[in-house]
C-alpha cells in the first residue's frame, strides 16, 4: 500500500471520529499555541529593548559608584557617596575621547501647579543632557551652562508631566512647585513614548543637577555620570581613559579594586538581551513541557483507539493487510493528528500574540523560525508517541482480534 493511499485511509479514519480526534489533538494544539505565543512575547520585548538601545546610540557610557562585583548590572548607586562633581570635571578635562558629560542625581517628588498635583521622577542633569541622550526639545529651550553653575530653579518637563499639569495650556514661563520649591518651566522634552509597558520616559522633569543637589536632596555627591564618547570607534578608548582618571581622582592604589564602575551602553544592551534570551528559553521550555504532555496525551488516546478498534484491525488483516500496513496506518494517523494539531496550534499562537499586543499593548514578534520548529516538533511528537500504539496494533493476532468483544 503506497504512502498516499495510507494517508487517505488515515484521514478517513480520523474524520470518522471527529470528536475523539479533536480531543486528542487538543494537547498539541494548546502546547504549540503556548510555545508560539510565549516566544513571540519574549521576542517582541527583546526587540523593543534593542530598538531603544539603538536609539540611544552606541557611544553612550555611564559611570556609577560602587565596584562591579558588589552591584551587579542595575543601578541604584544611592548608598555610595564617592562620586563628586570634580570627578566629572576631571574626566571632561583629561579624557580626549570624551565629548560631553552630565553628572546626575535623581529622586521622586510631588509636583504642584495650581490645583493639579503629580508625583514624578526628578532628574538633575547638566546642560549637555539632550546631546548625550539624543533627546530633542519640543517647546521652549533647555538650560545652559550658566544656569547650571548658578543652580537656577528652572525645569524642563517631560511630555507626560506637561499633559497632566497643564492639559494643553502653554507651560513656558509658568511656575510649578517641586517639593514646595518654586521652579520656572522653560521647556518641554519631545515625547519618546512608552516602551514595552515598563517605565514611561515621558513621565519625568529635568532640572540642573546643582539645583537638585542643593535644593531638593541636600547632598554634595552625585549618583552617576552620563558620558558620550567622541565617536563609536573611540568608545573603548574613552572607557580606559575615564577609568585611569578616576583611579587617580579617588587615589586608588594600583591593583586595588575600583570603587566605581564604567559601563558601556552596548555591554548593557547585550546584558539585557542575554537576560531576555534566558527568559525566552525559560518560557519556551515550559511551553515545551506542555507540548510533551500533549504528546503523551496522543499516545494514550492512540492506545485506547487501538483497543477500541481491535475488531477493525482483525477485519483488515483477514482481507490481507500485513503487519506493515497496520503499523503505517496507525502511525500515520498519529502523525497526521499531531501535524494538524501543530498547524492549528500555530494559528492559535499567532492569534493569541496579536490579541495580546492589541489588549495589553505589549509588542509581540512571531518569528518564522519558531513556527517552523513548532511544525516539525509536532510531527516528531506524532512519530515518537504514535509508534508504540501502532506497533502494538500491528502485532495483534488476527484470529484473537476477530474474536474480540
Amino acid at each position, binding site marked *: 500500500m503506497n504512502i498516499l493511499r495510507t494517508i487517505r485511509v488515515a484521514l478517513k479514519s480520523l474524520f470518522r471520529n471527529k470528536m475523539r480526534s479533536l480531543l486528542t489533538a487538543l494537547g498539541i494544539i494548546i502546547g504549540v499555541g503556548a510555545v508560539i505565543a510565549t516566544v513571540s512575547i519574549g521576542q517582541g520585548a527583546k526587540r523593543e529593548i534593542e530598538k531603544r538601545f539603538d536609539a540611544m546610540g552606541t557611544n553612550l557610557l555611564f559611570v556609577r559608584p560602587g565596584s562591579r562585583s558588589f552591584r551587579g548590572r542595575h543601578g541604584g548607586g544611592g548608598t555610595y557617596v564617592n562620586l563628586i562633581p570634580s570627578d566629572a570635571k576631571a574626566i571632561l578635562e583629561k579624557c580626549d575621547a570624551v565629548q560631553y558629560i552630565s553628572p546626575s542625581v535623581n529622586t521622586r517628588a510631588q509636583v504642584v501647579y495650581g490645583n493639579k498635583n503629580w508625583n514624578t521622577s526628578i532628574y538633575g542633569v547638566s546642560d549637555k543632557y539632550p546631546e548625550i541622550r539624543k533627546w530633542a526639545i519640543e517647546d521652549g529651550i533647555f538650560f545652559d551652562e550658566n544656569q547650571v553653575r548658578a543652580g537656577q530653579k528652572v525645569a524642563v518637563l517631560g511630555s507626560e508631566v506637561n499633559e497632566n499639569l497643564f492639559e494643553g495650556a502653554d507651560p513656558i514661563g509658568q511656575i510649578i512647585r517641586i517639593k514646595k520649591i518654586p521652579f520656572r518651566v522653560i521647556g518641554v522634552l519631545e515625547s519618546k513614548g512608552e516602551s514595552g509597558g515598563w517605565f514611561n520616559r515621558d513621565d519625568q522633569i529635568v532640572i540642573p543637577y546643582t539645583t537638585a543637589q542643593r535644593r531638593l536632596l541636600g547632598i554634595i555627591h552625585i549618583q552617576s555620570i552620563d558620558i558620550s564618547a567622541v565617536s563609536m570607534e573611540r568608545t573603548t578608548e574613552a572607557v580606559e581613559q575615564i577609568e585611569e582618571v578616576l583611579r587617580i581622582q579617588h587615589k586608588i592604589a594600583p591593583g586595588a579594586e575600583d570603587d566605581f564602575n564604567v559601563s558601556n551602553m552596548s555591554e548593557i544592551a547585550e546584558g539585557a538581551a542575554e537576560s531576555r534570551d534566558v527568559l525566552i528559553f525559560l518560557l519556551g521550555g515550559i511551553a515545551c513541557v506542555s507540548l510533551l504532555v500533549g504528546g503523551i496525551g496522543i499516545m494514550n488516546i492512540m492506545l485506547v483507539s487501538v483497543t477500541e478498534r481491535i475488531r477493525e484491525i482483525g477485519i483488515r488483516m483477514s482481507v490481507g*493487510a500485513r*503487519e506493515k500496513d497496520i503499523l503505517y496506518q496507525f502511525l500515520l494517523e498519529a502523525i497526521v493528528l499531531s501535524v494538524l494539531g501543530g498547524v492549528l496550534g500555530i494559528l492559535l499562537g499567532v492569534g493569541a500574540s496579536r490579541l495580546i499586543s492589541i489588549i495589553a499593548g505589549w509588542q509581540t514578534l512571531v518569528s518564522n523560525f519558531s513556527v517552523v520548529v513548532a511544525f516539525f516538533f509536532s510531527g516528531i511528537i506524532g512519530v515518537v508517541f504514535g509508534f508504540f500504539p501502532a506497533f502494538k496494533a500491528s502485532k495483534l493476532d488476527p484470529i484473537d482480534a476477530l474474536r474480540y468483544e
Partner: protein
Amino acid sequence: MESNNNLIRLENIKKIYKVGETQVNALGGVSYNIKEGDLVAIMGPSGSGKSTLMNIIGCLDRPTEGKYFLEGEEVSTLDKNKLARIRNKKIGFVFQTFNLLARTTALENTELPLLYSSTSKKEMMEMAYESLAIVGLKGRELHKTNQLSGGEQQRVAIARSLVNNPSLLLADEPTGNLDSKTGKEIMEIFKKLNSEKNITIILVTHDSEVAQITHRRIYLKDGQIIKEE
C-alpha cells in the same frame, strides 16, 4: 497421483495449543481434499475443532504439524506476510457477525481488500460496484453500515469476500445472526455463486439446514474427522 483440480489438500494437519502448563490438541491429524467448485460443509459440536480447521484453511493460522497445499502450493510454512498476501488474493471470508467497518458505506466496505493490493481508485470502485450487484445490492452502495439490515450487511460481507475474485470462500456460521427467511436468501446466494461462478465454498456450521445445500459434509469431533457424506 496428484489430482490437478484439487484446490485444497490437507495432509495430517495437527494443531496444538499451550494453555499455561497443559497442551490442548485442537486438531489431531486431519487429512482431506477439496476440489475446485466444491461446496462443502464442516460440521460438529463446539470444541470439535471446526473453527481451528477453518482458520488454517483460511491461512489465518499455521498448523503445528502437517502440510497444507492450496492450489498446489504448500502454504503451511509461509510467514505472516505471505499468508496475508494469499488471504488477499485467493481467499474470501464471511463471518457470523458480518464484521463490517462501522460508519462506512457498503461500497467502502466492499473495497477494503482492494486497498491492500495494487488497484487504482477507479478499478476499485468498478470492481466493488460489480460485486455488490452480484449479491443484489445495486442502488444501496452508498448506504452506511448502520443504515443496512442484518441481511443486507451479510450481503455486503459476501460482496467484500468476492471483490478480489478469490478461488476460495470461507463462511463461518453465515446465517447465525439472521432470521430464517433472510438466512435462506443468503444461502441462495452461496448456491448461486458456486453453481454459476464455480467458486469453491466451505461452510462451517452446526445448522443442518444450512448444510443441506452442500455437496459434501465433513463431521468433526475432538479434532478428528469422524464422518463424511
